[in-house]
C-alpha cells in the first residue's frame, strides 16, 4: 500500500513537470516544419506538373527555370538596380506623404476647426483610386521622377493622415487634462501628448501606406519608366519573357515581406511602452 503510493508519487511527479514543455515545444517545431514544408510541396508539385506538361510552360514556367533567371538577373546587376531605383522612388514619396500626413493628422486630431475644414476634402478625394489620378499627376509633373514621388506621396498621405487623426482622437481625455493643468502650450500638446499617444495608430497608417506605395510605384513604372520593378514586369510581358515576369513578382513579394518585418523592428524601437 505505502510502496504503491510512493511509486505513484514518484512516477507522476517528474514526467509531469518535464513533459509539459517538451510536448509544447514539439508542437511548435511541428508547426514550423509544416509551414516550411507546405510552400516547398507546392513548388515541387508545380515543378512536376510543368515537367509532365500538365501545366502550360508558356504561362507557368517551372520554379527551377524562374530560379535560374533570378540568379542570372542578379549576376548581371539588372535586378539589384531595378530594386534600388524602385525603393528610392517609394522612399522619397513615402517620406513626403508620411511627413505631411502626420503633421496635418495631428492638427486635425487636436483642432475641431481644422478637422471641420479638412474632413470634407479628404472625404471627397480619398475614395478615388489613386491609380486613376496617375494620368493627372503625369500631366502636371511630367514623365520623370517627380511624378513617381508624387503619386506614392498621395497614396501614403491619406492613409497616414486618417490614421493619425483617428489616433489622436482616441487618446484618453485625461491626458489632455493633465497637459492643460501643467501648463502645456499648443505645441507641447502636439509633441508630448498627441504624437506619442497616436503613435500606435500612426504605425498602422505607415504600414498601410508602404503597401500602397509598392502598388503605386509598380503601376507608375508600368506606364512611364525605363527602370524599376514595374518596368521589369511590364517589359517582360511585352517580350514574352515569362520567367522574368515571375522574378519581378517574387521580388515585390520579398520586398513587402522584408519591409514589413523592418516596420515591426522600428515600431518596437519607437514605441518601447507598447506591451
Amino acid at each position, binding site marked *: 500500500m505505502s510502496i504503491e503510493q510512493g511509486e505513484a508519487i514518484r512516477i507522476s511527479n517528474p514526467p509531469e513537470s518535464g513533459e509539459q514543455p517538451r510536448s509544447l515545444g514539439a508542437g511548435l517545431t511541428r508547426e514550423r516544419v509544416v509551414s516550411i514544408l507546405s510552400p516547398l510541396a507546392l513548388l515541387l508539385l508545380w515543378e512536376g506538373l510543368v515537367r509532365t506538361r500538365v501545366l502550360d510552360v508558356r504561362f507557368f514556367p517551372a520554379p527551377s527555370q524562374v530560379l535560374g533567371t533570378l540568379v542570372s538577373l542578379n549576376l548581371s546587376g539588372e535586378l539589384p538596380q531595378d530594386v534600388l531605383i524602385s525603393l528610392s522612388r517609394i522612399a522619397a514619396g513615402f517620406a513626403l506623404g508620411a511627413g505631411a500626413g502626420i503633421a496635418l493628422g495631428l492638427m486635425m486630431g487636436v483642432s475641431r476647426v481644422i478637422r471641420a475644414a479638412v474632413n470634407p476634402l479628404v472625404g471627397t478625394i480619398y475614395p478615388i483610386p489613386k491609380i486613376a489620378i496617375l494620368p493627372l499627376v503625369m500631366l502636371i509633373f511630367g514623365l520623370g521622377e517627380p511624378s513617381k514621388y508624387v503619386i506614392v506621396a498621395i497614396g501614403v498621405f491619406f492613409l497616414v493622415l486618417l490614421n493619425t487623426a483617428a489616433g489622436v482622437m482616441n487618446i484618453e481625455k*485625461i491626458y489632455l487634462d*493633465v497637459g*492643460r*493643468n*501643467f*501648463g502645456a502650450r499648443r505645441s*507641447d500638446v502636439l509633441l508630448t*501628448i498627441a504624437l506619442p*499617444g497616436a503613435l500606435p495608430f500612426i504605425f498602422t497608417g505607415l504600414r498601410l501606406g508602404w503597401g500602397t506605395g509598392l502598388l503605386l510605384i509598380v503601376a507608375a513604372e508600368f506606364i512611364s519608366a525605363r527602370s524599376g520593378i514595374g518596368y521589369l514586369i511590364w517589359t517582360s510581358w511585352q517580350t514574352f519573357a515569362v520567367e522574368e515576369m515571375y522574378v519581378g513578382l517574387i521580388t515585390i513579394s520579398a520586398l513587402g515581406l522584408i519591409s514589413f518585418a523592418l516596420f515591426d523592428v522600428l515600431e518596437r524601437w519607437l514605441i518601447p*511602452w507598447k506591451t
Partner: protein
Amino acid sequence: MSASLQKSELQTGERIVGPPRPLLKAKITVRHLRKTFPLGSGTLKALHDIELSIAGGEFCCIVGPSGCGKTTLLRILAGLEEPTAGEVEIEPSGSGRPLNSMVFQEQSVFPWLTVEGNVGYGLRMRRVPRQRRRQIVRSYLAMVGLEGFATAYPYQLSGGMKQRVVVARALANDPEVLLMDEPFVSLDEQTKIVLQGELLRIWESARKTVVFITHSIDEAVLLGDRVVVMTARPGRIKAEVAIPLPRPRSVYELKSSPEYGLLVGQVWSLLRDEVLVKDGARMP
C-alpha cells in the same frame, strides 16, 4: 440675489459643526459658483451656489454622494472647466510658482513617458533646464519611494506605484495649491493605507494648501483639517465639520481612537440623507 442673504441662510443651517477653526487668510475663495451642463434639450444642474473659503496651508476634504458634482468643483478650481456663474479666486503668493497642480487618478500617468518623464512633466512644461529638472525629480522620487524606477515605463509598475508617480508629478511642480481627485480610489485597501500615511507625512512637512475630493468618509476624516459635506445633485455645500485631531497623525493609531470614530459618525449622519435622496431609497 445678495451675498449677505446667501451667507446668513447658510449660517442658520448646519454650517459649522465642531469647534471653529482659526481665522486664516483665505487662499481659495469660491463665491456663488454654479455649473450647468447641456443635457439633451435641457440642462443638468451640477453645482448650485457653492460658497467656500479655504485657508492657506489647510487640508480641506470634500465628500459627497457620487454624482454630486465634487469632481466638477475640483475641475473648476483647476481651471479645466469654466463656471456657469459665480467666481473662483486663488490668491497667488507672488512667488511665481504654479497656482495649482492636480493629482489625477492613477490612469492619468502618461504611458509613453518613463517614471522620470512623468514626474518631471510639469517642470518640462515650465522650461526648467534638464539638469535642474533631473535633480528635483530624483528628490521627489525618493520622497514617494520610487528611487530606482526612474527609467521604468508605467506598464512595468503596479497600481500603487503609478499613483505614487501621479502624486510626485504634482508635488514636483511645487504648486501653491494641490488639488486631489480621489487619488486612491482604485487602489486595494492595504496600498491605500500606506499611501494615505505617506501623504500625511509629506503634507505635514510641506503644509501646502490641499483640496482633496473623496467619497470615503474615513479618508476625509483621516487626512483633513476640515471636511466639507456636499448634498446630492445639484451639489451644494451642506455642512462643514472641523477635524481637530492632533498632528502628526498616524493612520493606524487614529483608526482606533474614539475621537476619530465620533467624527466619522458625525460626517456620516450629515451625508446619509444625501445618499438616500440620491438612491431614492429609505433605510431605517
